[in-house]
């Protein structure tokens, strides 16, 4: 182990001298790239338009449940689904083990959908449709996400945060009509 520098013996005297030029240059280059990526990610969020815009609010589970019940009562159709008129806020509850109600949206129209949980942590995950959207859903907090569905179809919503022994059965649907 008699190499010049050994990791198992105390460092030789003078080890704390100034870093050589190439190592300093490397560190500055790395710091610059961290800065560049930091700026880029903010710009991408602001101008890239990749993500659905979200807002959040605090809400007690009981109050949220009440809000959702009156929403369902108002817009429930004969097919059991809730037909949300464009411009209206939509609501969805995550509860073990389902997302409800099933929403029917019009393609091309922006909707603000509020989601909250009445029991455990859940994951709201819209799968398929070429782009996943994943949000962490917690009791006491409501997530408001603005979606503009562009393609008609039936989209599956699954829970992707483990919430109990029936977790793999937890699903919901969003139907997009022309």
């Amino acid at each position, binding site marked *: 182990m008699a*190499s010049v520098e050994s990791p198992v013996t105390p460092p030789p005297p003078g080890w704390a001298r100034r870093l050589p030029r190439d190592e300093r240059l490397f560190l500055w280059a*790395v710091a610059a790239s961290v800065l560049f990526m930091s700026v880029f990610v903010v710009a991408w969020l602001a101008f890239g338009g990749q993500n659905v815009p979200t807002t959040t609010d605090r809400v007690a589970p009981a109050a949220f449940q009440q809000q959702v019940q009156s929403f369902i009562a108002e817009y429930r159709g004969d097919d059991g689904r809730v037909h949300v008129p464009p411009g209206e806020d939509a609501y969805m509850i995550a509860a073990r083990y389902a997302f409800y109600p099933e929403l029917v949206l019009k393609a091309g129209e922006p909707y603000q959908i509020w989601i909250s949980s009445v029991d455990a*942590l859940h*994951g709201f995950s819209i*799968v398929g449709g070429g782009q996943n*959207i*994943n949000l962490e859903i*917690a009791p006491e907090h409501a997530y408001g996400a603005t979606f503009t569905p562009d393609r008609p179809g039936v989209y599956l919503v699954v829970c992707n945060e*483990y919430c*109990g022994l029936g977790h793999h059965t937890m699903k919901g649907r969003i139907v997009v009509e022309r």
Partner: protein
Amino acid sequence: MAYAEPIPQSFAGLREEPSRTCAVTGLRVYAGAQALTVANAVAAVLSLAVGGLFGLSLGLTRAPGLELLGPDAYYAALTGHGVSALILWPIFFEVAAMVFASSVLLNAQVFSMRLGWSAFGLMTAGAVLLEGAILSGEASVTFTAYPPLVATPWFYVGYLVFAVGALLAIVNFALSIVAARASRATSGSLPLLTYGVAVAAILALISIVSGLVALVPALAYSQGWIGAVEPIVYRGWFWGLGHTLQYVNVVAMVVAWYGIAALALRAGPVNQKFTRIGFILYLVFTVPVLGHHFLVDPSLSTEVKLVGGTMFGFALGVPSLMHGLAVIGGVEAQLRRLGPATLFGWLRRIDWGNPGVAALTCSLLLFALGGWSGTAQTTLPLNMVSHNTMWIPAHLHGVVVGGTTLAFMGFSYFLVPLLVRRALWSTRLATIQAYLYGAGLFWMIMAMSWAGTLGVPRRTAEIGYGGEAPGGWDLPMNLVGAGAGIAGLAGFLFILNIVLTLLRGERTDDPERLAPSGAA
């Protein structure tokens, strides 16, 4: 090994234990330090065996073509895998490293053997309680145990007892360093490996304290002593444990990298200061990066997420980049000392059949892969796409299994023979094991990433959703199962080789047999 019996003592200055001089490193090895290190390493390997078995069963369940376990057994195994492979195995190994780095590397005894064995006893008791609770099926809450999910109290008690044991081990580590300096067994700055382990120990301390803040109320809630624990608040404190612990693992992995490079290739760091700055940066950036677990949580503002998750997340990649290059640079510098070589000619001086070289190479590559995918997902926009899909286990298996576990395996191939003075049972098997494990993991990680891109949820027993699941989920998940099978086989070969080394390895003091050189 004339002195296998540990000698109880309460203070290092009280009695001078028997010691020997290591044939390879020239370091002084005291009997107590040796016994305590080996005990923790053995507990670590047993935990890995259990965690690996659980992990293999998960992989074979997630493959739709197999579905080995039913949902209830799957969630129990999922809990067992997280607890055994992500908590018990690395922490036992890190305590072994702490004992080793604060005694053997400092030519000193362990400060207090009684404290050391108490810590080991508590950690073992905690581990047994945890495994028992999980196997009883009363603790299928996954290792994160988010309330209002509740487990049997033994599960929380197991966590807490294990944590107290680990705290005692950290205290003993710090006091051993102080005692070694006071007794002038060592002087000047700490050796690099001890320095790195000290950084890991500080992070472990932060991690454990945060874990206590999360788990004590969770236990109280599970027993009905308090009415509620807000899940999102618990989640924050829990990841103060879970996230910080992953950086304990990363720092310990880097220590193992330098250790393997030193033992297999006689290589040291290119620049001690550069390397130590790297370790300090882990201390600075680890805690704020906690935010990257909450990038799509409803409880934090976008500004906090961008700074705490994303920007510090980029910065936290810097020390890993520094160490990865510094380890390779140290190896290059050492191999160039053997004679002039062209730009990449020094690579030809490496014996790729050496187990240390195999493990170090695969660990560096897989950690880079997992680190890259982690950095990508730490950006707010991409996290909304990848959160809690199979992208997340793809990332964490790259860094924790490919990086940390494989580095610990490679380090064990040298540490264990040196400590018990027995040659590795099979050096060739060790080399094959490291490459096979690396290949199996690479396969599994790529398949997991593919599945994640398609939106397959993680931690989910079945993904059929009554026939409603999008097409194309089955193939990548079947490939995940195949990769897990290969990695599981290679994991078994590691355990086999270490156990046979402990029991039947040939007794020797020949440096070339104890720490075979990886320089051709």
